[in-house]
């Protein structure tokens, strides 16, 4: 089977974060299952090892007005992908859904290649709730077309599956394929980063967070929680890996709480280095925040699966899929979403009980290996695609 993965959203020069991890993970999982994969992207490609990557760049003339570049880029991609399709002859396109992106539907019409849509959330919902849209009707129509024409839609969670159906996907064509983890890259045997020695934290209990500091990640709540927790246990330290939109606010909170000397920000690091930073931590946090409009949290945090595979004690907001993955007291501890005091209490409890940390970490690792590897995700995707093909024939 030949699969052409198309990701043409504008992500600038960023090549780290959950969506890139997912991309690399699922593609390597598919290759391990014998699928022949090539990639089309529109910005600098993330590291993909031996997978051939073709870049179709954005026009330099559309860099100053919002959303327009995405609208105009559809035609550009469909024209320039022609020689790649002619040479590679893919059986299926796997297209990542993004703003105003109907390249999959256009390729289907022009070249007759069916596509699987990787639906990571409604762009209309995300822009309405987290940023802004200037062309809402057009965005809605594009989303509807992308979902309606797809032979198969993958959603990372059940709430996202429902969202896809509400936005126009046929209910029998949407399957849930959550994010996953490379359980060899992320494992308890990883050599820890020397960061503990660097900061003189050899005897401290280090609480870690890795992420792109997006609004729903809740890094501000973790910063606040560290302030409370340090009042109860002075051996705690905080380690933030990554950078992004809310980092400035997180730093302000750390300053306000007077714990600047007990918290370190290492900034954005290559994904390959993330395991060693996680290995240097004792407790890992997933302080995800609820959706601002009260709808169910629809994410599938990549960091959660990476934390589990590291065999570390996890404290998490039990929202959406996180509640299904982490069993309170068995594979991690729950805290109230958005409640810094609740998060602080869970951290303090784990800090005081090394045996509990080991027990939770081992159970989480077992779960990750048995159920949440990228190979398992790739097999689920291929099975869903086989079902679609069987139902058509």
């Amino acid at each position, binding site marked *: 089977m030949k699969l052409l993965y198309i990701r043409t959203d504008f992500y600038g020069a960023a090549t780290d974060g959950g969506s890139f991890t997912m991309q690399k993970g699922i593609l390597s999982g598919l290759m391990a299952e014998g699928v022949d994969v090539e990639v089309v992207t529109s910005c600098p490609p993330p590291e993909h090892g031996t997978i051939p990557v073709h870049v179709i760049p954005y026009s330099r003339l*559309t*860099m*100053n007005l919002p959303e327009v570049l995405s*609208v105009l880029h559809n035609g550009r991609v469909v024209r320039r992908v022609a020689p790649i399709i002619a040479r590679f002859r893919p059986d299926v396109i796997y297209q990542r859904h993004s703003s105003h992106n109907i390249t999959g539907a256009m390729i289907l019409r022009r070249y007759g290649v069916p596509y699987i849509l990787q639906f990571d959330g409604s762009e209309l919902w995300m822009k309405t709730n987290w940023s*802004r849209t200037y062309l809402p009707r*057009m965005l809605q*129509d594009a989303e509807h077309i992308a979902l309606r024409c797809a032979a198969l839609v993958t959603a990372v969670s059940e709430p996202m599956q429902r969202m896809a159906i509400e936005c126009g996907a046929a209910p029998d064509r949407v399957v849930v394929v959550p994010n996953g983890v490379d359980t060899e890259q992320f494992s308890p045997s990883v050599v820890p980063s020397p960061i503990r020695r660097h900061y003189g934290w050899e005897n401290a209990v280090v609480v870690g967070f890795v992420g792109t500091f997006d609004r729903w990640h809740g890094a501000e709540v973790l910063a606040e929680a560290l302030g409370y927790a340090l009042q109860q246990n002075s051996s705690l330290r905080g380690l933030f890996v990554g950078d992004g939109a809310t980092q400035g606010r997180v730093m302000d909170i750390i300053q306000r709480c007077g714990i600047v000397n007990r918290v370190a920000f290492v900034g954005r690091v290559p994904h390959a280095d993330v395991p060693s930073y996680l290995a240097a931590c004792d407790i890992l946090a997933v302080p995800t925040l609820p959706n601002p409009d009260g709808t169910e949290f629809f994410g599938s945090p990549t960091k959660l699966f990476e934390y589990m595979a590291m065999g570390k004690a996890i404290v998490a907001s039990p929202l959406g899929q996180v509640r299904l993955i982490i069993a309170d007291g068995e594979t991690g501890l729950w805290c109230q979403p958005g409640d810094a005091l609740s998060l602080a209490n869970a951290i303090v409890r784990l800090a005081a009980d090394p045996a509990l940390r080991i027990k939770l970490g081992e159970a989480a690792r077992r779960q990750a290996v048995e159920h949440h590897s990228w190979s398992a995700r790739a097999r689920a995707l291929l099975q869903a695609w086989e079902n679609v093909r069987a139902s058509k024939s």
Partner: protein
Amino acid sequence: MTNDRAARLQQVLVLSGSPERAMAAFGGTLDAQLHALEEFAVAKPAKVLALLRSLRGTNVAIVTKDLRYQRFRTIWKLYGAIAGLSHWMFIDEQGRCDRFSWVKLFAIELPLLVLEGAVSLVGVFVGWIRLRY
């Protein structure tokens, strides 16, 4: 070797990327005051102009991960011009620099922005028609 112009920077606005890496690539050290900015703050002119006006009379750098992929650059330059900033530039982690110049703004960047607006109008209209039919 330290670049004198970089060393004199007093205010650094961070859109993306690492200010330390950007300053190192530019040839200076980071001892300026840092302000975190979101890329989409560009859609909030009142807030941006208030911030930029407060920086008038200082040397300012806007840090971005990679200048080649920095969207809304001309809009930022317009804001800077309206706010009365005259000594400022974009810098990135690879050492690229785009220095603000009134001549460049009026002779090249604004005409290109007008052209972009016209192309965009046509493109969005055609895109809309194709979506509907």
